[in-house]
């Protein structure tokens, strides 16, 4: 007898269902009811019974579906006024998902047949040892690389482009030099401060250092007459305070 072909009724087994939607669809088919007008109360009870039987009532996905079914059932039981056009059928979302899923199952059946037919054909079994030749050349298109770079850039939430600005100013060096001068002399002029053969960078660095030290009260800057030379004078800490 063709015992294994086709199927003798529905044998409920764990692997039979790929998920709660699969089980639900199975119940609907078994009852030959219309998906678009789902008898929720009945289906929900059956669903709960099956997952309890199969021990699936521990599985989160099945449990979530059970909860969803019960909620829809409860919503349907709530009284509603006649002619209430605002009413949304609480089953709508589930029905949409079921129809979508049913389509997928149909495809699965088709693919199952196709894979079965292909499995009845054998490809060449013997594979010749790989030729003693250099490996295939690698090909990378610049476009591919750039597209990859673009994908990567898009991954970084805030594109942080670090621009490295050269900092030739040496304010620290100038400050140290001024401290050394102040330790030796109480007053000195700009020429002493900036040193011999000063570059533009030296001038700027020294000037910033002078302003900073003046602000801190380490020294005072005075210019006794307009366009006259600048006098740099040491400020004692006590007086500064």
């Amino acid at each position: 007898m063709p015992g294994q072909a086709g199927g003798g009724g529905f044998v409920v087994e764990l692997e039979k269902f790929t998920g709660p939607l699969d089980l639900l669809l199975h119940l609907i088919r078994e009852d030959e009811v219309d998906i678009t007008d789902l008898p929720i109360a009945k289906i929900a009870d059956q669903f709960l019974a099956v997952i309890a039987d199969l021990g699936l009532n521990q599985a989160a996905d099945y449990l979530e579906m059970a909860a969803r079914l019960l909620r829809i059932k409860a919503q349907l039981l709530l009284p509603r006024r006649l002619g209430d056009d605002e009413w949304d059928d609480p089953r709508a979302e589930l029905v949409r998902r079921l129809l979508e899923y049913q389509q997928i199952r149909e495809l699965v059946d088709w693919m199952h047949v196709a894979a079965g037919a292909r499995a009845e054909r054998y490809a060449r079994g013997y594979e010749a040892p790989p030729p003693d030749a250099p490996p295939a050349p690698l090909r990378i298109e610049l476009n591919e690389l750039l597209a990859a770079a673009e994908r990567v850039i898009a991954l970084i939430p805030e594109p942080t482009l670090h621009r490295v600005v050269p900092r030739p100013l040496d304010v620290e060096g100038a400050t140290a030099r001024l401290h050394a001068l102040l330790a030796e002399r109480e007053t000195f002029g700009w020429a002493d401060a900036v040193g011999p053969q000063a570059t533009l960078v030296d001038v700027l660095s020294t000037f910033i250092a002078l302003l900073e030290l003046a602000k801190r009260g380490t020294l005072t800057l005075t210019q006794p007459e307009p366009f006259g030379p600048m006098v740099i004078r040491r400020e004692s800490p006590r007086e500064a305070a």
Partner: protein
Amino acid sequence: MSPLAKLLEAALFAAARPLTFEDLASLDPEAGEMAVEAALGELRAAYGDDHGVELLEIADGWQFLTRREYAEAIDRAQFALRPRRLSPAALETLAIIAYRQPVGRLEVDEIRGVDSGAVMDKLVERGLIEVVTRGEGLGRPLLYGTTPPFLEILGLKSLDDLPRLDELSVALRRPAPIPDDDP
């Protein structure tokens, strides 16, 4: 057969996988496309009904496969390994990815109603799906698509050989009697 047809035959025999037209054309850089086309025709004619193997178009390429009627005998003798069958969950996941590609894991989970991470990892491992790009949304999710080996296990020439969704939905509307179920 022409020398070119014999060369193609040898190459197709040597390769355990489908070879594309470009693959075949590259065997003899001096042969033009027309010549390759003609040689392929010659080869198909030579492997007609009178052979135990036939030349089939699969996964955008050509492959020699044994005729279906010999499957049982070869199976019984156990000279060759039968390809592993895919589980219903794997087929379901593949179906969704085939039709929705590029598609992210969340969407697959949602359609199936179950977590599909483990199944998808297995399918990636078997080379049936692969990450093809990243999505736009939050976290730029990985999006998956099918591979040539996917077409190979179904024996399809291209994704176009899959039934169209609208063809299916028509069939789905009526409560279809389950075929072959009656004893």
